[in-house]
């Protein structure tokens, strides 16, 4: 237990070190997830648009 406590305390600088690492991790993960979502969203939109285009051309033929 003491080992963990000591590790978290970081010689008294834990209050500065941990927020640095946690905020860095959070910002980078949020950026990654947001980018992945943007890509998936766009891919879904284009999938929805492309069949619609085909239907339109199909209607024109009949």
């Amino acid at each position, binding site marked *: 237990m003491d080992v963990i406590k000591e590790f978290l305390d970081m010689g008294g600088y834990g209050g500065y070190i941990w927020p*640095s690492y946690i905020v860095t991790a959070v910002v980078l993960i949020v950026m990654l997830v947001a980018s992945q979502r943007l890509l998936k969203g766009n891919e879904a939109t284009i999938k929805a648009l492309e069949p619609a285009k085909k239907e339109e051309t199909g209607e024109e033929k009949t």
Partner: protein
Amino acid sequence: MLHRFANPTRFLRIATLVQPWMAWSTILLAGAGLYLGLLSSPADYQQGESVRIMYVHVPAAWMAMFCYTGMAVSAGVGLIWKHPLADIAAKATAPVGACFTFLALFTGALWGKPMWGTWWVWDARLTSMLVLLFLYLGYIALANAFDDPSRGTRASSILVLVGFVNVPIIKFSVDWWNTLHQPASVIKMDGPSIDASMLWPLLLMAVAFNTYYLWVLLIRIRAEIVANKIRILRLKQVHG
């Protein structure tokens, strides 16, 4: 050479292949960097344990400048040679670079408080870094401000190129003027003035940040290419 990669369809194929490699490199390098940085590296003789903030602060600051340089090169190529992929790369880099700049400032404040005795000072290094954040935000705002995306690209590319003068100012601010921020420890003429036991975690984290950037960049470029296709399809539907 450039033309080959500038073909968006070919790029999409390469990007999907490279992306998992970047993802795994990031995870493995960051894992190793965190282990060395938080557990196995020693405390500094002056700064004690607080030196560990360096392993996120310095890579973030390097990437902030690296991303801006990449953006300036892409914007220049886009402006001069009209490569559509170059414009897309610049646009896709901006939010990631802004994140890195924010993190460099944020972790710098957390490091400055215990060591210097202040969260923030208006010295040349810190101020020019804040200017970099505003340049990123200004670029993002400008690129999205126009209804006609090609006009937005032109205006924002010019902003990026003009703002590039700030990058050498950031790098050399600590040599040109006296600042509260200390001079460079790693990238300098007479070799790094940092012990190997601390240089290793720093370099591992720096490479991890770099592969992370490439990972997110590939995702964002793919998203932009698809977004452009959507725009063209919608225009066709409206007019056709």
